[in-house]
């Protein structure tokens, strides 16, 4: 879990307001897609 948190914190450090402001729609959608995949992975794990 510590490792997981570390990655989340890393992402949060990079995702600054300035960073978000400069993103394009496609870039945001891509990241959202990736996050969604991770979420699905987590949900899949629950069933197991």
């Amino acid at each position, binding site marked *: 879990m510590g490792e*997981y948190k570390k990655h989340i914190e890393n*992402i949060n450090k990079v995702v600054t307001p300035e960073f978000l*402001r400069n*993103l394009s729609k496609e870039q*945001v959608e891509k990241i959202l897609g*990736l996050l969604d*995949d991770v979420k699905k*992975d*987590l949900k899949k794990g629950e069933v197991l």
Partner: protein
Amino acid sequence: MINIVEIEKIPDLGTRLVFIEEEIYKLGRIAPTLTPPERLEAQQDIELLQARFESTLNLLNERTAKENLKSDLENKYKKLMEIETNYQSSLNEYRALIERGEPVPDYLQRVIDNYNSLRAPLLVDVPNPLAPFSELKEYFEEEMSNLSFDINKLNGRHHPDVAKADSIRLEKLEKDIASKEKARIELNKFKQKYPGLAKVNDRKKKYEELERKLNDVRTSNRDKIDISKKLQELKTMIDYDDVIRNFSGKDKNPASELKKLLDRYGASSIKSLKEVLKKASSDIQIDPSNPREIHEANPAPGSTDPTTATRSSTPATANPASATRTPAPDSTNPTIATTNPASATRTPSASTVNARTPSPDHASTSSPSLPETHVNARTPQKLDTLLLDNKQILESFVSTGNTNKDLAVINLKSINLGTTKSTFTYYRQIQDRDPSTGESMVKVVCVKEDIGPYLARPVEAYRQVLQDVLQDKYLYTQCRDTQTDPKMKRIYSKDSRFIKYAMKNFKNEIKSNNYRNAIERIVAVRSANTPYALEQAISSDIPPMPLSKDGTYNIEINVREKKLLPRLFNGIGKTRPDHILKPVTERVEEPSMFNRYPQEAYRAPKLVEPIHRRTGRDERGER
């Protein structure tokens, strides 16, 4: 692989994006190795991240829409100007030819004849297409200016020059309003002194009459002094009239000008507007991913300052004495709908967050008959330790009653969460008297509206609508259109004005996006099942939500209220949405899979040489 220390030094967008993608990829790889409770926590983290990006996406979409609209307006404006210029020069030429008695060429005649038909398609969306060109020009310019303003705002900043100009405008308006108010007060004093001169024309007539008298040589000196004094007073009255009237014109009314300015910045008061302008003048950027910041900089119309906000507080704090509950909505027995003190126990507390202690037996700690006075005393309650999802949060919103004794309860019939095509249907019960018999009865007002297009995130949206409903108690009186349903004692169908009102506020709130953060914070804090997670949730970058007047959080859900929920919905009969309103207490009693076995039992074996299915790269980032 990029290091976080390095990445913080590199402002390059592309590098940062790659870094984020890699980190997400790593998250995906770790996911299967997590235990169920860890997964839940991780899921919350991911959702928070998603919310930030979704917020950005919404802003981007909104900005694109506005930019398109502006570009469209600019094109129309340009064409309109061309048509007008061409028309005016042709008209001048035409007049000159007519004056000289010369024949008018066909092309000139065509320009003049086609003037309206050429303009018409450009003026489709203009409220008054037949207005003179100067007005149309003004309209287009104002619209374009507003759109530019909005785009700037969505880009995370107000234009400092515009903000400065608006600050000056605000100062002038304040002065105008003050002088108008002063004139009104003084005039009222005179009106009391001269009760017969309430009308402006009467005052003028009287003034003329006194002037004539004064000019009359036959009056004595004493009379002359008296008349002069009265004349002076009347003159002052007329001057005050002028001051008031000067500001009462369509364009000069400072109040309406001020309202425009407030609307423009989405501010609710002069104080908050000044803050916004001050911020904007100094070109402080707004975090697009932080709705609260946007909200604070631009509070939604109708809302108050963050420090005194009632709309932005939780249902509990907005309506601390949420004591009115009816267990049986279809009952005609008026006593059923009376205040139930046992349900009035939701209490905000400054110490709630820090005092939170996970406890599975929290249900037993809530006093079933805590008197209503405890609500006002803000007694700390035992905290809920359940993992709450959005639906449960929604339950807590829905369970909020109203302090108005006429309103028995607000119930939610069904909510289709998480979709963009959501139909929001709910019933609200009200205590009223039957107009024919005068008997006390419970009325059920049904509100059903498709709010999908306006949904940013359903939960806060619904919450806002509910809060609007809760706060505008008078609205129910407008619901007079009856529609009988055999399953209900009485159903009053939706009132269009009611819906319009709710939707208007709803849109404003969604626009300002000001509830998302609060929800995220609630989710994070509530779902924290370890002290570490709780600490993280509280100390995360999410700013504290402006939930109560004293700036404290309220993350409690009173267990008794949760127990009450099924009863409320049972009362509605078949409308009870079991899948949504499963009593939370039941979940506590369910054997927890987390506790049955040691966590290690759930830890999935670590993958050897994991290759990410999306990127095809291994742990070292190599293909």
